[in-house]
């Protein structure tokens, strides 16, 4: 790791101001991605601004019928929260499927979505449940937040403060995990809220994406058979030692079918 200046922010505005004053600052949340990145010297920020002291970014509350999760809320807290599990079991299950207990004890929802790893789980929840991302300066709709591999709509220095999830009528998340890390080789979140159906896929492409053909079919008939015959093209999907683009395309249909079955 290269040397950097470390400081703990005392408030959201202090964090944003410190970031603005630095040439190259990075926010630190759980550190489960950033610290490995620093160790590999893939990044060399001059300043690290730790968000750990910001109580205003922590915790889960219900507001206007939506479940609002503070950016610094850990995966373990989301998984263990009855305020999440009771209205949106799919979201609690997703958080519980991330990495291992120690990663879940430290890693946060804000860090996960800001990082926008193509194999991360939370992007499927944000897009698949039609969530809204709150930042220090604005709100960003789920469909506009993830723009590319490791890229989001966040401006430099913009800080995620919370994510609000509307409560769906039903939803489920199914993932085919990498057996070592538990990152998604393919993960699919399916939800239905009244007339609206969302099918969001993570792990398969450079960034999370929706499958409109499956959404339309499910809007007519919310049953596993409705998506069993629908596949996505393998063109442009991710390729690595774990899975070929064709295999990932195949998994999208399988995981979508299982998610619909689980959503009941």
């Amino acid at each position, binding site marked *: 790791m290269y040397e950097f200046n470390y400081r703990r922010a005392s408030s959201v505005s202090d964090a944003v101001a410190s970031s603005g004053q630095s040439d190259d600052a990075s926010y*630190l949340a759980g550190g489960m991605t950033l610290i490995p990145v620093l160790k590999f010297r893939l990044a060399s920020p001059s300043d690290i601004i730790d968000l750990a002291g910001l109580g205003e970014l922590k915790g889960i509350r219900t507001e206007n019928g939506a479940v609002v999760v503070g950016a610094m809320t850990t995966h373990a807290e989301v998984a263990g929260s009855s305020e999440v599990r009771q209205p949106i079991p799919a979201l609690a299950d997703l958080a519980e499927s991330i990495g291992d207990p120690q990663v879940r004890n430290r890693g946060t929802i804000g860090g996960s979505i800001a990082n926008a790893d193509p194999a991360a789980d939370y992007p499927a929840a944000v897009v698949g449940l039609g969530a809204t991302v709150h930042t220090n300066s604005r709100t960003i709709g789920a469909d506009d937040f993830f723009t590319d591999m490791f890229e989001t709509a966040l401006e430099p220095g913009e800080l995620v403060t919370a994510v609000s999830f509307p409560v769906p009528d039903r939803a489920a998340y199914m993932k085919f995990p990498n057996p070592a890390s538990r990152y998604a080789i393919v993960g699919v979140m399916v939800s239905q809220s009244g007339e609206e159906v969302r099918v969001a896929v993570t792990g398969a492409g450079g960034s999370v994406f929706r499958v409109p053909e499956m959404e339309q079919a499910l809007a007519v008939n919310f049953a596993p058979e409705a998506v069993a015959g629908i596949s996505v093209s393998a063109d442009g999907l991710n390729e690595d030692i774990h899975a070929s683009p064709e295999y990932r395309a195949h998994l999208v249909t399988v995981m979508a079918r299982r998610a619909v079955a689980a959503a009941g």
Partner: protein
Amino acid sequence: MTLTVTMTLNGESVSAEVEGRTLLVQLIRDHFRLTGTHVGCDTSQCGACVVHMNGQSVKSCTVLAAQADGAEVSTIESLAENGELHPMQQAFKDNHGLQCGFCTPGMVMSALDLVANNPDPGEAEIRDWLEGNLCRCTGYHNIVKSIAAGAQAMRS
């Protein structure tokens, strides 16, 4: 730039001058000379470095020492009392839950976090919990047995 980190380490208030980039595991091992906490991978995978921070198990190779400022940290050295092994340590010994022993401190610290969440974990839950702890020797069966036995000893 150096900074002063103050924490409660195994029940004692300690402080040290560290760089921003100093890892918690480096502080524990190199500065405080508590070498029971191991570094296996240094890439957040193996769990040999697991300690408790504010009551939760964490991978100390993936926490900055500065992040632990003000925290309560406990390591494997905090468990034995008056030369007597903690019931979880004794269970690992009795059930052949270790061979080379390199992964053991992390296994024990991780297991204690599990037992704090559930005093009577079943086999499937124990295996699932060990997702972040790698052992290259035992094949895990005896570790799972040890944790079940350790949990039972702690209940009685």
